[in-house]
């Protein structure tokens, strides 16, 4: 087993434009999700899949925090922990200052009425045997928010908000297109006292032309309803369009986190740069300067020693192979790298 | 794989245990006790009580169960209340005929069904296919006893080709041709249901395989149709059929009871019916136990065969 020489993740972050310290709406504090795949005969873990390892971040009121990374980096698992579809094996998650991990019963129900989730697969996320009307009405009934005529009106209101004609409320999900189903999913997520929506790759399964529509819808809703989003995606273009801040994940850890503009203008972590380069090669002249990564994403079961990115990093040195870098940096831009890329401002501490 | 088999065997033990308990409880829930069946006017109340005491009926049920289980583990199946013979002896006398009947039925069924099924698949949607499917459905829809009665009517009474029942003609013990004559009708009747199932199963299995890509490749390579079918298609199509064999055994057990009744075949089925009406508990329990163990074994074998056939199926 490798030695643990890294520093504890420091989780102080500030919103770029804050004048006074604002409390985060949702705070993730050193959260890990380790799956024990095999135990030896004594019961001690032998093979552990580290899907998420000591991740911390904050979601502020009204903002969209994007989370990107390749398949298997743990972003989906992280999202699921936020709505307690999965439970963290370490760390804490706090909503409005209070931990959500110990909640149960009525309190958990209240949390769920304020923090919702949008799934990636619009075909699988709706009950094929329920009419759209019932899909939207049921959550409100269960939480006792509306009933009778007010309930009906509220359902049509929701459909209207997402651009589905009210007349379609008697139809079944299979009668709708993928984009429409996703809209219904969004409407469902809005049906309660929703303040936060965790979006797990909500447009990845849709046609490109539809993606823009859904993203616009999400933006409009955010503005009109004051929602906060945690937006998980693997496509840079999508995330850039909708996020104010972006966190980059690799193999279960956050490797860089910054404001969206800043991240694209000045990525400090080599992995981030590689992602950006892979995405933005429209200009033929720039292709030569692309940073290409060698190899494939290694297995989260036995992560590499030291910096998890070192096997694929063109700048890796001995210290990278031995010591895991902590998340360092100032203000709004932080990164975990021993040899961050050149920056115009800001010190990089090894 | 071996681990899985081991695990299944291990799980089978409590199941077996549960079976014996249920068996025991079931049979002793029957109203009336064995002594009642044999009361004659000359017996006094004392005699009755004495007999009950002798048979151990007055003891509390759990005690009786433990006693029975203990004897069972020593290989002693007890004595029949009706004939006072050791149950083990009675059973062993009857097992032979039943096995003969079941085995013959199985062989007849498969010998008929597999080729018919294959040919049906090859000539799908032809008149042969439709008639075969029709007969298959008929086979599973006609109850054993009706078919048996009909068969006796036609072949034994009207045509007088075959005897009406029993296993052998009196005085002709040990004459195999005689037994065979007696065996034909009941075995065929018992075989129909199994054959019916099998025909449709083989047909569907072979049809699936015939449409497969790798066969098209083989044909494209110029192999003769004969080789294509027999070497490649059949091998794959017949694998899952092995698993069905394990399932037919419990069916045969049930069907045998009725068939033996109709044809007066001296097997376990007949013994079962007799034991039920005479409340012969020890015999009943022994037969039930034997049948349950057989079914358990058949299920186990089938489950294991599944894993070979379809590794994606996990419990």
């Amino acid at each position, binding site marked *: 087993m490798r030695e643990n020489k890294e520093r504890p993740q420091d989780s102080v972050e500030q919103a770029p434009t804050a004048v006074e310290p604002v409390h985060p709406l949702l705070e993730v504090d050193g959260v890990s999700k380790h799956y024990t795949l095999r135990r030896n005969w004594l019961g001690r873990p032998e093979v552990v899949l580290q899907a998420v390892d000591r991740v911390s971040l904050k979601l502020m009121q009204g903002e969209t925090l994007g989370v990107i990374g390749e398949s298997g980096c743990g972003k989906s698992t992280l999202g699921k922990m936020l709505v307690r*579809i999965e439970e963290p094996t370490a760390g804490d998650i706090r909503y409005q200052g209070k931990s959500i991990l110990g909640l149960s019963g009525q309190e958990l129900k209240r949390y769920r009425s304020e923090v919702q989730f949008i799934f990636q697969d619009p075909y699988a996320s709706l009950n094929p045997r329920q009419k759209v009307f019932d899909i939207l009405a049921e*959550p409100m009934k269960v939480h006792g928010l509306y009933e009778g005529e007010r309930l009906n009106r509220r359902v049509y209101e929701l459909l209207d908000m997402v651009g589905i004609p009210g007349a379609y409320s008697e139809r079944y999900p299979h009668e709708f297109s993928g984009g429409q189903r996703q809209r219904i999913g969004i409407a469902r997520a809005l049906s309660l006292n929703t303040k936060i929506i965790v979006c797990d790759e909500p447009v990845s399964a849709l046609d490109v032309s539809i993606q823009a529509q859904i993203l616009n819808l999400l933006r409009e809703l955010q503005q009109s309803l004051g929602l906060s989003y945690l937006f998980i995606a693997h496509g840079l273009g999508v995330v850039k369009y909708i996020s104010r801040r972006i966190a980059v994940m690799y193999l279960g850890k956050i490797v860089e986190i910054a404001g969206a503009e800043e991240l694209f203008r000045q990525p400090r972590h080599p992995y981030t740069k590689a992602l950006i380069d892979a995405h933005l090669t429209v200009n033929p002249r720039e292709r030569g300067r692309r940073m290409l990564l060698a190899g494939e994403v290694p297995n989260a079961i036995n992560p590499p020693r030291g910096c998890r990115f070192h096997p694929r990093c063109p700048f890796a040195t001995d210290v990278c192979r031995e010591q895991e870098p902590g998340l360092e940096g100032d203000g709004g831009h932080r990164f975990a790298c021993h040899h961050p890329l050149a920056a115009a401002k800001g010190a990089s501490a090894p | 794989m071996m681990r899985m088999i081991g695990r299944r065997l291990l799980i089978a033990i409590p199941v077996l245990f549960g079976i014996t308990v249920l068996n025991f409880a079931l*049979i002793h829930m029957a109203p009336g006790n064995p002594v009642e069946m044999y009361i004659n006017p000359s017996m006094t109340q004392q005699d009755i009580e004495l007999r009950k005491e002798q048979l151990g009926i007055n003891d509390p049920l759990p005690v009786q169960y433990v006693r029975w289980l203990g004897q069972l583990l020593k290989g002693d199946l007890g004595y029949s209340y009706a004939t006072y013979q050791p149950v083990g002896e009675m059973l062993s006398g009857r097992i032979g005929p039943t096995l003969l009947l079941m085995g013959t039925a199985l062989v007849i069924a498969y010998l008929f069904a597999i080729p018919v099924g294959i040919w049906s698949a090859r000539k799908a949607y032809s008149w042969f296919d439709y008639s075969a499917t029709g007969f298959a*459905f008929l086979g599973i829809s006609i109850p054993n006893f009706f078919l048996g009665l009909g068969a006796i009517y036609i072949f034994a009474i009207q045509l007088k080709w075959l005897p009406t029942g029993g296993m052998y003609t009196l005085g002709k013990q040990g004459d195999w041709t005689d037994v065979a004559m007696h065996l034909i009708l009941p075995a065929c009747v*018992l075989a129909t249901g199994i054959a019916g*199932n099998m025909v449709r199963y083989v047909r*569907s299995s072979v049809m699936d395989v015939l449409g*497969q890509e790798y066969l098209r490749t083989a044909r494209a390579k110029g192999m003769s149709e004969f080789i294509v079918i027999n070497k490649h298609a059949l091998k794959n199509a017949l694998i899952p059929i092995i698993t069905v064999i394990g399932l037919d055994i419990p*069916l045969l057990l049930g069907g045998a009871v009725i068939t033996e009744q109709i044809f007066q075949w001296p097997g376990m089925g007949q013994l079962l019916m007799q034991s039920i009406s005479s409340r012969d508990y020890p015999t009943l329990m022994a037969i039930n136990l034997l049948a349950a163990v057989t079914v358990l074994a058949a299920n186990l074998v089938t489950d294991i065969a599944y894993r070979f*056939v379809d590794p994606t199926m996990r419990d």
Partner: protein
Amino acid sequence: MEQTPQHQENRQVTENAAENAAGHAASRAGKPAASQAAQRQSSSVLRAFLRHRMAVAGLAVFSILVLMAVFAPWVSPHDPYEVGKGFQPPSAEHWLGTDQTGRDILSRLIYGARTSLLVGVGAVSVYVIIGVCIGVIAGYFGRWIDSVLMRMTDVVMSFPYLLVILVMVSILGPSLQNIIIVLGILGWPPIARIVRGSVLSVKNREFIKAAHVLGFGKLRIMIRHILPNVLSPILVNATFGIATAIIIEASLSFLGMGVMPPMSSWGNMLNSAQNISTLSARPWVWLPPGIMIVLAVLSVNFIGDGLRDAIDPKRKTTR
């Protein structure tokens, strides 16, 4: 020939195994769109069913039997309990003759439909309800509850169907209700297994996770979300179960352990044929009830086959 419910369930499962062994890997690749498309919606199931000629024929015949059973008092020419001169051959007054105690065979035949259908539908309803409850609980809660319930299922399944029925009926006494009860109490294991398998696969679908995220309680999720998506596999199994139940009732009544005269059952009408002289000389006594059994079971089997082909478009066994 009786097919026990175990046999049907295992056959269904084995047939799936056959398809996989024969290489239908793609159908299990689990692409999101494919999983929706593979399960047809109700309207197209109906249409597919109607294309299956034998199934439609079966449905027609079965409907006639149902009508016959329901309207028995109006349709039957005589009172089935009324005794008279025994063993009369068919005549103008008794179209199918009379049985050993002089009861009109045709009337008994018509009332016999009631018995068979009651047992068929009744027993299946009982064991479907039991099986669904057990299967859903085992599949949803998993872990030790699942283990215990599945062991129980194994134990009950290990008993050879007919033997246990015989023993139980001899305990409880022969009657219509008892047969329904016994068949119901013994027939649930295959259903429980199928339902459990279905629940296990539905449990992990995203709309169930969505229900959790929306704060729905376990009971609500089980009943309103999992259950409706789990019922179609058992439809076919239940249909074949009706056929099996009819045969078993007939067999039991024939052996004198089921429905007893004077109540009419096609099975007990065949009982007197065990006598050689009735068998050879009086075919009108036993041929009609036997044919009725075959008709009833055959039609239900065709319906089941049609349903099976209609629900799963990948299979096409008969046209």
